[in-house]
């Protein structure tokens, strides 16, 4: 293991620390309800996890990029094995009691392997994509990355964990983009999903289908691929009502409620409505730290996990929200810089993949609290209570610190560009 000193990307560390401390203080506040529940004590656990995470980040940052590169396939293999195992021994928890996303030994829940899987799959994707000399030009060339993401994605969707599944798709697309895959091809890859979404309206789907045909004719992929894409889109467009039937009732409900939360204001729509009320009633400056009435009086559900950002909105107002979003913006822009300056394509892709993973979390989570996104039960990095996710986020920070240190300008400090 290398022992020589390396420059530390202090802005990255500072932003991550601020976000974590901000998050833990909100986890504390989330426990401060009028009728105390078990949530009241969780901030301590979160603090312990935070300390462990810092240590883990430091440990990970000691691994050179070369070492990570070398470790990628064994770790990826272990991840797949773990996810497979979970399907048999996984346990549910909290709001997702029926899913199998938790690893437990003797009834004691250790963690959610899918959080760590998000990192190992990013590594594997980076490894596969970095082998391309030229950016892939056809769908056929994408079979390897598709497989690398597809297997763990399928295993996670089987748990089921829709939120993490979306994250996988999100960072996979982002990494294809970062690898230089052209826009038209990205659109073609994404087209079946778009067909799926637009299928509820024949007119919209028809318009999209014509656009797709035009794109295929202009981009001119291999003939079989073109036909394949068109057929897939037709299938998705025509058969999505059948797929709809395949969804679990709660999933259907979530999507319907997203379109109109008031169709079921007391049940499925309840979370969204209460979250919006909490955020909206915060105003410019909020009701004061720990003083949010929506949260105190238990109107706000999952106030320490999925809807923790509603607590920020209610208690610290638009000011607190702006601060949090600014910190995330600083983190993301910093990581983009890290990815730009990375020494090789593998580390650059890893950096960008980790960024994309966080980004999808943040956008989906915050969007859901405002009903801009459907509810998928996805945590907010550094904020939501949860040990595995905190640990995973800081492991990612550790990897990024290493990449930053080894990157161009690293020797002169990360500020010199």
């Amino acid at each position: 293991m290398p022992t020589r000193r390396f420059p530390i990307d202090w802005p990255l560390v500072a932003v991550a620390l601020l976000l974590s401390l901000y998050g833990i203080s909100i986890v504390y506040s989330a426990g401060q309800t009028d009728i105390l529940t078990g949530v009241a004590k969780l901030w301590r656990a979160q603090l312990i996890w935070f300390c462990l995470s810092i240590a883990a980040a430091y440990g990970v940052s000691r691994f050179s990029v070369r070492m990570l590169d070398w470790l990628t396939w064994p770790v990826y293999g272990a991840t797949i094995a773990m996810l497979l195992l979970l399907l048999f021994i996984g346990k549910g928890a909290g709001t997702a009691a029926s899913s199998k996303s938790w690893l437990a030994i003797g009834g004691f829940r250790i963690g959610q392997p899918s959080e760590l899987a998000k990192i190992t799959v990013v590594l594997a994707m980076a490894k596969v994509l970095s082998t391309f000399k030229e950016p892939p030009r056809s769908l056929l060339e994408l079979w390897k990355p598709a497989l690398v993401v597809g297997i763990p994605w399928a295993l996670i969707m089987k748990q089921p964990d829709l939120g993490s599944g979306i994250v996988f798709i999100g960072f996979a697309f982002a990494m294809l983009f970062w690898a230089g895959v052209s826009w038209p091809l990205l659109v073609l890859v994404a087209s079946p999903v778009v067909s799926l979404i637009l299928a509820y309206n024949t007119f919209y789907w028809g318009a999209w289908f014509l656009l797709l045909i035009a794109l295929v004719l202009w981009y001119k992929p291999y003939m079989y691929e073109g036909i394949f894409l068109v057929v897939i889109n037709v299938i998705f467009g025509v058969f999505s009502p059948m797929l709809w039937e395949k969804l679990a009732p709660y999933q259907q409900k979530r999507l319907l409620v997203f379109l109109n939360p008031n169709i079921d204001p007391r049940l499925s729509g309840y979370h969204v409505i209460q979250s919006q009320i909490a955020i909206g009633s915060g105003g410019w400056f909020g009701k004061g730290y720990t003083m949010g009435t929506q949260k105190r009086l238990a109107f706000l559900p999952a106030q320490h996990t999925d809807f923790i950002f509603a607590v920020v909105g209610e208690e610290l107002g638009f000011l607190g929200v702006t601060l949090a979003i600014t910190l995330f913006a600083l983190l993301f822009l910093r990581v983009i810089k890290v990815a730009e300056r990375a020494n090789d394509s593998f580390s650059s892709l890893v950096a960008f993949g980790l960024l994309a993973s966080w980004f999808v979390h943040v956008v989906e989570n915050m969007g859901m609290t405002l009903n801009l996104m459907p509810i998928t039960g996805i945590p907010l990095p550094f904020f939501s209570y949860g040990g595995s996710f905190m640990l995973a986020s800081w492991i990612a920070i550790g990897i990024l610190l290493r990449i930053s240190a080894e990157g161009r300008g690293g020797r002169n400090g990360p500020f010199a560009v």
Partner: protein
Amino acid sequence: MSFHPNDIVKRGRVASMIVAGVLLFLLGGFFRSQVLNHQKYDLQSKTNRLRELPLPAPRGVIFDRNNKVIADNVIGYSVSVLAMKEDTLRAVLQRLTGTISLTPGQIEKSVRRFRRAPTRPTVIIPDASFDVVSVLEEHRSQFPGLIIQSAPRRFYPDGPAVASFVGYVGEVSEAELAQSSFADYKAGQQVGKQGLEKQYESLLRGKEGFQFVEVDARQRIVRNSGAQQDQIPEAGPDLHTNIDLDLQKFVAGIFGDSLQGGAVAIDPQTGGVLALYSAPSFDGNRFIGGVSAQYYDSLNNDPRRPLYNKALQGTYPPGSTWKLATVAIGLETGAVKMTDRMPIACTGGLQVGSRYFRCWKKEGHGYLDLKGAIAKSCDVYFYQLGMRLGIARLVAGGVAIGFDKKAGIDLPEELKPRFPKSTEYFDIKYGKKGWTSSLVLSMAIGQGDNSQTILNMAKFYSALGTDGKAAKPQIKKGTPERVQVVQLPADQMEQIRQALVGVVNVGTAAASAIKGVQLAGKTGTAQSGKFVNGKELNHGWFVGFAPADKPSIVVAVMIEFGGHGTRAAAIASKIIQAYLHVVPIVDLSVDG
């Protein structure tokens, strides 16, 4: 991948722009919710957590003329539940049945209350016993949203003695809520149902207060918050009445359990009602917080009809007590003078055309002047006086005195008496050719198409006892306007009073004289239409006043199926004695 620095920087710029753009979009979303729509969500968050607990106002206390309490408020408890949805309410009620007994009827009633006012706590038990309250307090933590409030409870210290005029309060009914006059009432509130409670409802009810409490998502009251100023309930103002509670209780006592009928006592100088009683009575206290079906049925099935107010709603043929109206009309029209004799002497009856009209006394009264005829209540004299007046004049005179109208007491139950407005009444009832002037014979002695309330007769006699003026009988303290009812000069009024004194001293009510006080009055015995063993039961009347020269009390007593008027006279005499604090000269032994 294409890892040329230029490409990477280009993509980095695109990525930065996407990141910044999406985050700005999110920030915009928060801005819209938190700044632009802040008021809407702020309101929603308040309605989410603030609940108005109504604080019932104590009703105004009702006092008698000597500031004795007729209707009071004592501490009671009401049990209600805060629920968001009907299902939640039902679930809570279902669980409550495990702790206290709730009938399916109570549950359905509660649900209906909830539907009417879902934002208010739904009243489950309007008047909970202390046992129920203590059991619930013990298990309070199991029932989020359960509210146990102390609520002022109406109490009538003299229960059955005062029910005839006080009435009672009860929960506002669904039928009432449907009326526009009940627009500001909410399900579960109390409202006057009868008597003074109903008459002066708007005054007595006071103003409901509110306590704003903070509830959590499970509708548990978290704190009695200071988020919004509580509104203290305003008690209804006291109601002072003309009732003499001691006299009222005396009247109730004298009727006891066996007699049925009614009595009204009025101060003739003011029209103030001193006592008003209908026997048998009921206990208004048992109606508070919902009357039990058992008690209500027992009242409803009682053949003596306790729920039927015999002083206000009962109309009875006034019998001989009405002869004074014939007298007054005769004197007013100059048809007769107090000293006049009628051409035909009483021989126990009078032949008119083909019909023979009996006097109540088979042996006959012989020749009598008007004064004597009043004292002896001679029917034959009044048949002839009636014929002399003619039906038109008699009916018009009766209308002028007010026998076709309500007395106008400030109680909602009073019914209109039955009296023809004019002779057209007979045309309609019997057909134009279907009746003869002989109708006047029965009218003149207070029979026929004439049914009066006890109250209306008391009002008439309060005019006779004074200067011919009478006020609307009034229970609420005040000085109602006295209106001329009998149009006679003072000397003739005096003659009438003397004649009525004669009734008591030497006439039909001789047994009811009072030592040291001149009592004046008239007995009456009217057919009831009810037969027992082939013999018709009569209603016994007495209406009179004392002291005769300047009366301070008028009493009208009617005993249903109570035989002769002498019996009523004896009761009236006792009432007057009680009011004037004098002792009788004769030990009363009353028989038929």
